[in-house]
């Protein structure tokens, strides 16, 4: 499969009469966007805000972040199985409003949603303080069940991103990148002297606010399977998931999976990147055993010499990570793991809930328990009172002055386990 990704660089975002991109400025027709996003009888209200890098703005609770895109050629839509039919994506050409993002917020569904600060110390920890954000605040009708509430907001975000992405349809990209993975046997023969590397992409699937979808299917219901890297880059995997927002992958990060991107950078030079296995992180032991057995088998089936395994979440999924690692290593295939740590607020505890002697090559993306004070912001989009109860907050997290003292666990993407950011931890 061969995918061209054409990036239209967005340097600013403004409201205006017509949704379009002019000289690098994304102009948004606020009412039209609200109408598209709110097109659901379960939605009571939609408000649209802009949040730009450096502004004194806090968004809380953040549910998802999505990159606006449009399919220019090739099959499928930008969110196959959701806003379009389930046609296989990953081929042809997709245009991206690079530098722009849709952020969804609104009344809290659970405990589990995140925070984005556009300036101050918190901004350093989230990738979405650097994007021009179109914030869509969605509140559902009264009495909506939590599961439906989550689904309604998720879909509204996809509609908003698709709507904005259409502005990129007829534009000439500022730059084009091409990614290609061939059918397995051909791909193996292309670089016969380079080590064959696969990517094991673990998807969070523990329930409400812990779900991930593949072509519209809840990934809880899949058994691990092979997928072309370009399918993932083209919207095959989306998020339903922001619990402990630090280490959950918003849709934006699935669309821009950094492991896939960086493996392509090394492809043909240091490695032969032959493909991806997606697997899940279900809560029962039999599911864990089945999925890790299947994953190890598929990696072997592909003939991989080495894999990168990325986790999504912590605690319970540490068991999946450890099973995947040890079962793959036992087949003589080398592994590198990407995980975050829960070493306690003082950093003195052991960091994982499970361990294996085979896990001898680990990339740490930081200790999520480390405490940070986020100073008050001039503007809060959303509902700041949830700071005391979201995962990573505690009674008294929200100060009288509007500051928040909490673990970096509350910050969307702070310890992203695809290694989207530069954070790490070291022993002192």
């Amino acid at each position: 499969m061969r995918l061209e990704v054409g990036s239209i660089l967005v340097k600013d975002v403004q409201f205006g009469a017509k949704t379009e991109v002019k000289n690098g400025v994304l102009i948004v027709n606020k009412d039209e966007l609200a109408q598209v996003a709110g097109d659901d009888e379960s939605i009571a209200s939609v408000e649209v805000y802009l949040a730009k890098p450096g502004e004194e703005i806090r968004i809380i609770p953040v549910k998802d972040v999505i990159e606006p895109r449009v399919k220019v050629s090739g099959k499928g839509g930008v969110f196959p199985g959701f806003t379009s039919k389930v046609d296989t994506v990953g081929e042809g050409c997709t245009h991206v409003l690079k530098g722009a993002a849709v952020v969804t917020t609104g009344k809290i569904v659970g405990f589990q949603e995140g925070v984005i600060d556009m300036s101050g110390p918190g901004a350093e920890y989230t990738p979405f303080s650097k994007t021009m954000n179109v914030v869509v605040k969605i509140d559902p009708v009264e009495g909506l069940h939590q599961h439906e509430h989550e689904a309604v907001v998720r879909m509204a975000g996809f509609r908003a991103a698709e709507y904005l992405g259409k502005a990129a349809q007829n534009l000439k990209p500022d730059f084009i990148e091409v990614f290609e993975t061939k059918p397995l046997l051909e791909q193996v023969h292309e670089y016969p002297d380079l080590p064959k590397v696969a990517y094991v992409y673990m998807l969070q699937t523990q329930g409400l606010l812990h779900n991930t979808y593949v072509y519209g299917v809840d990934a809880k219901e899949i058994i691990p399977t092979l997928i072309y890297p370009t399918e993932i880059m083209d919207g095959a995997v989306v998020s339903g998931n922001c619990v402990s927002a630090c280490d959950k992958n918003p849709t934006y990060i699935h669309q821009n999976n950094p492991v896939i991107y960086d493996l392509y950078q090394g492809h043909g030079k240091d490695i032969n990147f032959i493909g991806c296995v997606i697997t899940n992180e279900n809560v029962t032991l039999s599911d864990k055993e089945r999925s890790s057995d299947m994953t190890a088998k598929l990696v072997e089936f592909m003939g991989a010499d080495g894999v990168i395994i990325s986790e999504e979440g912590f605690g319970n999924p540490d068991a999946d990570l450890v099973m995947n690692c040890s079962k793959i290593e036992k087949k003589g295939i080398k592994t590198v793991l990407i995980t975050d740590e829960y070493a306690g607020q003082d950093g003195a505890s052991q960091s994982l809930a499970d361990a294996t002697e085979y896990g001898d090559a680990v990339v740490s993306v930081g200790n999520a328990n480390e405490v940070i004070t986020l100073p008050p912001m001039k503007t809060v989009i959303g509902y700041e009172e949830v700071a005391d109860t979201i995962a990573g907050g505690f009674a008294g997290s929200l100060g009288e002055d509007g500051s928040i003292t909490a673990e970096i666990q509350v910050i969307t993407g702070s310890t992203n386990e695809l290694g989207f950011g530069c954070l790490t931890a070291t022993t002192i």
Partner: protein
Amino acid sequence: MTIKVVHYINQFFAGIGGEEKADHRPEVRDGVVGPGMAFRQAFGTDAEIEATVVCGDTYFNENLETATSEVTAMIQEYSPDVVICGPAFNAGRYGMACGAVAKAVSERLSVPVVSGMYPENPGVDMYHRYAYIVETSNSIAGMRKAVKPMAKLALKLARGEKIGTPEEDGYIPRGIRKNLFAGERGSRRAMEMLVKKLKGEEYTTEYTMPVFDRVHPSPAIKDIRTAKVALVSSGGPVPKGNPDHIESSSASKYGRYSLQGIDDLNSENSETAHGGYDPVYANEDLDRVIPVDVLKEMEEAGEIGSLYEYWYSTVGNGTSVANAKKFAAEIAKDLQSSGVDAVILTST
């Protein structure tokens, strides 16, 4: 303002004597003694050693609790900004004493401590978390070399300045995980690590996997019909409203809640505080997390002796192993003293 320092040394460095004098009891002297001279020189006018506490190594180690308290009380008298212990080089019992003093001073007085030891000194292994221990040579010949970085660290700590990495400031890693921003993003680091691992080249893992404790199960209950059974859960089951505000993640506490007058948990009287799983089904019927209804029935039918009148709850989500261990030790003690015979542990 001049920084106030108290120095702890053993009987040998105080010039009292060797092994034959190692039962020397704690004493405090104003000003510098022995190696304190070298520190005074290193400090110049920035800091003043107000007092030196001396104790024999045998006395300290054989009367660990008393000696620790005596020495700590002497140190407290001077309200120091920082305490220096040793350096102890490779003297094992001296290192252990320095470590115990460091632990007590840092925990009880909240005063930072600097020490110096040879890496194989048992005091390092036992107490590296409680002091910044500068790596020294294995003998007193390394005194001059040890004093400089120890004095520098002491000044930094007393001033509340940021301490650098172990490499930068020359101390033995304290086993504490600290976040920092690397030069490359995580995915890039992972790819580079994999390339090295595949080539058989040396690479450094960013996290060394822990070794876990294994808990042996207790022997089976002989007669469950006479046993007092308790419920303990990390699934966050709490009375409605979460009265103790147990955190949805990274719990800093646990709760003990009465079952008096409760035969069944429901959405009126209880909920989960846990933020790491789908709470909908637990909030509808918390018996799904701790089976109070069934156990009450079994108690009624004589199938178990009794259900203990309290349940214990915390949130396992993101909670550090160290905190979990602490909660468990306290809960176990409580259960034991209440004559509980068996515990049903539930998670989520």
